């Protein structure tokens, strides 16, 4: 499993931020009529000319402040967004899942949701049937598996969701701050599962705000700032740079107090 798992070449993701979007036909027509209240928008680049390569078997963290483009990059990798320009190459299967439990229906039982979620993640029915018991055991959910998920505690819900998402066993695992799931015991199990992915030579991309997690898992870290990739380095270097960045940029948002 040598070679490149993921490659971004000069990727830009632009969003059109629309103000006063005419969501209804009436607004469109009245807008045409009077020509007055036209839609205004500005293009917002959530990801700006980002390039990087991730080799197979690497565990790479993505850090940055809120709105720096971390999740957008994960969504581009997953294929939810098509980038506005640039190229994305993904070599290997991917779990196209960004958020745990997306697609769970609260009226359906855990078992029914496992089936639908598994199918959404690209498994076949047969594969899911084979994995089902393993998922139920991992989630430590017991007989609640046949109760509608609306009766689950949020911890149970997330445990089932995590169990399904990682049972898929993709070549490239995308993790978006989902390790803060459940109690300490379950968190340890999650960490273990991530570690086992790593041991088996799988590629992991991890978005996190938790620096200890980043240090624990990652051998490389990408630091994003306002959609730009500003550092691509070892965890210690990148985290140091990140601390520096937070330290520097925060005072900017607060107006300077005269006389200080």
């Amino acid at each position, binding site marked *: 499993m040598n070679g490149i798992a993921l490659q971004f070449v000069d990727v830009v993701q632009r969003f059109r931020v629309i103000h006063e979007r005419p969501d209804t036909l009436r607004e469109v027509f009245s807008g045409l009529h009077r020509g007055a209240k036209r839609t205004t928008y500005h293009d917002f680049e959530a990801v700006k000319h980002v390039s990087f390569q991730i080799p197979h078997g690497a565990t790479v963290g993505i850090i940055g402040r809120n709105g720096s483009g971390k999740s957008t990059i994960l969504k581009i990798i*997953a294929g939810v967004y098509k980038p506005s320009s640039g190229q994305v190459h993904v070599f290997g299967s991917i779990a196209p*899942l960004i958020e745990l439990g997306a697609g769970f229906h609260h009226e359906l039982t855990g078992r029914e949701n496992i089936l639908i979620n598994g*199918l959404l993640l690209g498994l076949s029915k047969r594969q899911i049937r084979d994995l089902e018991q393993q998922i139920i055991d991992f989630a430590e959910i017991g007989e609640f598996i046949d109760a509608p998920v609306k009766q689950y505690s949020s911890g149970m819900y997330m445990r089932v969701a995590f169990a399904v998402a990682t049972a898929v066993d993709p070549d490239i695992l995308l993790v978006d701050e989902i390790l803060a799931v459940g109690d300490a015991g379950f968190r340890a199990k999650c960490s273990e599962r991530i570690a086992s992915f790593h041991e088996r030579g799988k590629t992991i991309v991890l978005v996190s705000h938790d620096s200890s997690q980043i240090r624990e898992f990652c051998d490389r870290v990408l630091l994003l700032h306002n959609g730009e990739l500003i550092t691509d380095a070892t965890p210690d270097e990148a985290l140091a740079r990140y601390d520096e960045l937070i330290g520097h940029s925060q005072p900017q948002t607060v107006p300077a107090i005269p006389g200080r």
Partner: protein
Amino acid sequence: MFQFCADLYRYRELIWALALKELRVRYKRSVLGFLWALLNPLLMMIILTLVFGTLMRFSIDHYAIFLLSMLLPWTFFSQSLAYGVESVVGNAQLLKKVRVATLVFPVAAVLANVINFLLSLLPLALLIVLLRFPLHWTWVYLPVPMLGLFLFTLGTCFLFATVNVFFRDVSHIVQIILSAWFYVSPIIYSLDFIPQKYRFFFRLNPMLYVLNGFRLSIYYGLLPSVQSVAMSLACGMGALVIGFGLFRRYQDSFVYYV
């Protein structure tokens, strides 16, 4: 179109699971559960039979059967559309989080209603036997008009679901369109009732051709002409080509608008 069939095959398990989910959610927490899929049309048919068999008598023999032969497929169409129009917007949370072939949602919405529709044919057959109306052998021909109807419904759902992503009003308008469409289609009446000079306008309605085969085989016990079959399938394919074409063209931008 080839792409469409390939995707259908590729996602067949997911589509099937989503359709079952839709039905399961619909009948969940009701004591009779899935039985409602049979009971509902049966009760509705009994009411219609009573109303038109005793209260309002038309010159049409066995008016209830005459009506039901087209009302059931129409109900399928209108319910599919009511669900289908929301099928993309309603799954916004999924679209934003998971890479998934968007087409599975409208298809699953229609498929759930196909199952419902097929189930509703059982009480119809039962009613026909109870009323001592002949159960024509032409029933075996029903799969042909069904194919036309399903294709037409699917195409219309794709069209409305796509437009609804960009203009949410569509989900409101759809009910109005459906009720107008219902009255201009010869469901409660026959095209013969319409004065000759206006019939031309009624013939522009694709629904006429899509529904025609149902009344012919269920009520009249006749096989439609080749021409009529061709028209029904052509309407179905035409709707699908237009609807799916539009859907395909815009599906990549759905995620930014839902």
